[in-house]
């Protein structure tokens, strides 16, 4: 049972990180700060899903984590393009 203790501590750290990044998402003064916070939330979701897979032993979840990493990158690129096109108008 003590072998599960590092995973639980990791879950605690990741949950605290999620709460902190949510504060930045609400408070962020500019649009770029909010895009940065959303991107970081996506990456944190990847980390949480991977930690869940390691904790429970359902290793199919790692595939979901990798797919989420791919899609999250695309969303960040789309947001950056939107920011660029909005500024050049």
């Amino acid at each position, binding site marked *: 049972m003590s*072998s599960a*203790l*590092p*995973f639980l*501590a*990791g*879950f*605690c*750290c*990741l949950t*605290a*990180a999620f709460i*902190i*990044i949510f*504060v*930045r998402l609400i408070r962020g003064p*500019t649009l*770029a*700060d909010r*895009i*940065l*916070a959303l*991107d*970081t939330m996506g*990456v*944190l979701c*990847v*980390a949480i899903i*991977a*930690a869940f*897979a*390691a904790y429970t*032993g359902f*290793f199919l979840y*790692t*595939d979901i*984590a*990798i797919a989420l*990493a*791919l899609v999250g*990158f695309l969303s*960040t*690129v789309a*947001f*950056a*393009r939107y*920011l*660029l096109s*909005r*500024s*050049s108008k």
Partner: protein
Amino acid sequence: MIVLAGLFVLVGSIFCLLATIGILRFPDLYTRLHAATKVGPLGAGLVLLGAGIASGDLLIFVRCLVGLLFLILVSPVSAHLLARAALKSGAVPSSIASINDYDDSP
């Protein structure tokens, strides 16, 4: 093996926590980007590697390794795109920053 996996997951989670504290406390978008780029390859990458080690299966481990490589490849690209878009849209760097290599560009 499970001890090594737990160590990887724990170190990756601690990196995620420290990087988000940096995102909360840094004064500027560009310094915040410097902290946010650590979440991808170091934080989530180490947790993915820990999951791959915990599985004990070579196929799953290789899959997690490919995911880590993708994160290393993609994280600087997205950070560069976001910083460039922010600079073009007029986000000024903090007054602490003393060097701006981008001004007076043709």
